[in-house]
């Protein structure tokens, strides 16, 4: 329980940050209202942790304990749960994610939408503090930085792939890998056919 208290202390700033963001986006906050009083339990198997997210007064409450039966429970390893949060698409489509869901799919979908699709007009909120002109200038700088970082990241990935494949010869080229997989598939099919023929000989 002392550990729980420590987790509680660590969750408090996170909860405050999430609710501060929600307060800036009333439309998203309204999406929480249908889930008032409901609780989602997230049980992480590796490492063994649990987190309860409850909706109260259109705000989120994060806690390591809950005295009530949760309305929905997501169970999975930390990596599987993070992948689920990061990927697009419907949250209740859990096929192949390594995460299992027990209870209300609507609650899971709703909360995931709120957490991943917070649509904040940063420039507007910034302009209330700094005024219009600096906010607009900062917005342009931020946008340019974002584009540059994204472009550099993509180029770095390409260059790294070329270096490893062509310069160092550490990894095979994509076409080589595809040809190898095709050969393996062909071999697999031939083996199946051979096995079927042997089975037919045995039967006759």
């Amino acid at each position, binding site marked *: 329980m002392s550990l729980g*208290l420590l987790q509680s202390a660590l969750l408090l700033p996170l909860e405050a940050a999430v609710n501060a963001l929600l307060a800036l986006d009333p439309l998203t906050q309204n999406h929480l209202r249908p889930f008032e009083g409901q609780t989602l339990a997230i049980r992480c198997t590796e490492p063994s942790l649990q987190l309860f997210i409850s909706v109260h007064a259109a705000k989120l409450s994060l806690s390591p304990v809950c005295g009530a039966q949760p309305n929905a429970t997501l169970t999975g390893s930390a990596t599987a749960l993070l992948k689920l949060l990061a990927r697009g698409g419907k949250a209740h489509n859990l096929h192949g994610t390594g995460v299992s869901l027990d209870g209300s799919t609507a609650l899971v979908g709703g909360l995931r939408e709120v957490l991943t699709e917070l649509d904040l007009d940063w420039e507007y909120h910034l302009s209330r503090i700094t005024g219009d002109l600096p906010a607009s200038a900062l917005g342009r700088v931020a946008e340019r930085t974002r584009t540059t970082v994204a472009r550099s990241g993509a180029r770095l990935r390409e260059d790294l792939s070329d270096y490893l494949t062509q310069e160092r010869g550490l990894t095979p080229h994509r076409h080589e890998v595809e040809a190898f997989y095709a050969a393996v598939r062909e071999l697999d099919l031939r083996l199946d056919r051979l096995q079927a023929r042997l089975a037919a000989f045995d039967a006759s």
Partner: protein
Amino acid sequence: MNDSNQKKTTHFGYREVPVEEKAALVGGVFHSVARKYDLMNDVVSLGTHRLIKRFTLELSAVRPGQRVLDLAGGTGDFSLLFSPRLGEKGQVVLADINESMLRVGRDRIIDAGNPGNISYSLANAECLPFADESFDCICIAYGLRNVTDKDAALRSMYRTTKIGGRVLILEFSTPRNPLLGKAYDLYSKFWPIAGKIVLNDAASYQYLVESIRMHPNQETLRDMVLAAGFQRCEFHDVMGGICAIHIGYRDAA
């Protein structure tokens, strides 16, 4: 005790006092500390009392529309935590036996923009002035220790809890680890000094230290909760047993 001339006594800290005098003595302590009660709580608990109350709130499992009694609620911080969880249709009753504490609590709630679902009651925990089965949840945080007849208070809480409801008792308790116990003893010697500095009142915090020592341990309190009528009782140690949260459930008879 059998002698009719000999008065029944109870403990007030380490002192034995006549039963009928304890409430007034405890009242004196809280009249004295009411003004800066929360500040002193922060000082002696190093702020952890806020976290522990949050923790207790999560264990209460209250839902919108329910009725909650914040017993010995004093300065109203717990009521303010409960209030948004109960919504417009729910209600928190902030009750305390001490007028000064209740006054501080009421002022604080009004200053916080009174959410509209909190009401106040000057009430003695031993004989709660509410109808049977009035509350979905009763919560008493750091209050039971100061009640003269704890068994009567627990029976009164049982009577006013709805079937299916629960009682939460957050109270100082007995550390499990003897080393932690020693360190805690040593630390609590600082409380009367802090009381002297902040409130110019060392005696009230000397009483606080002594009353914690005299309070029943986790297992004894669980037995008392069950004896009051609650069908189930579980407790959670907090910070190695320095505090404990007992939850008594009133199931269908």
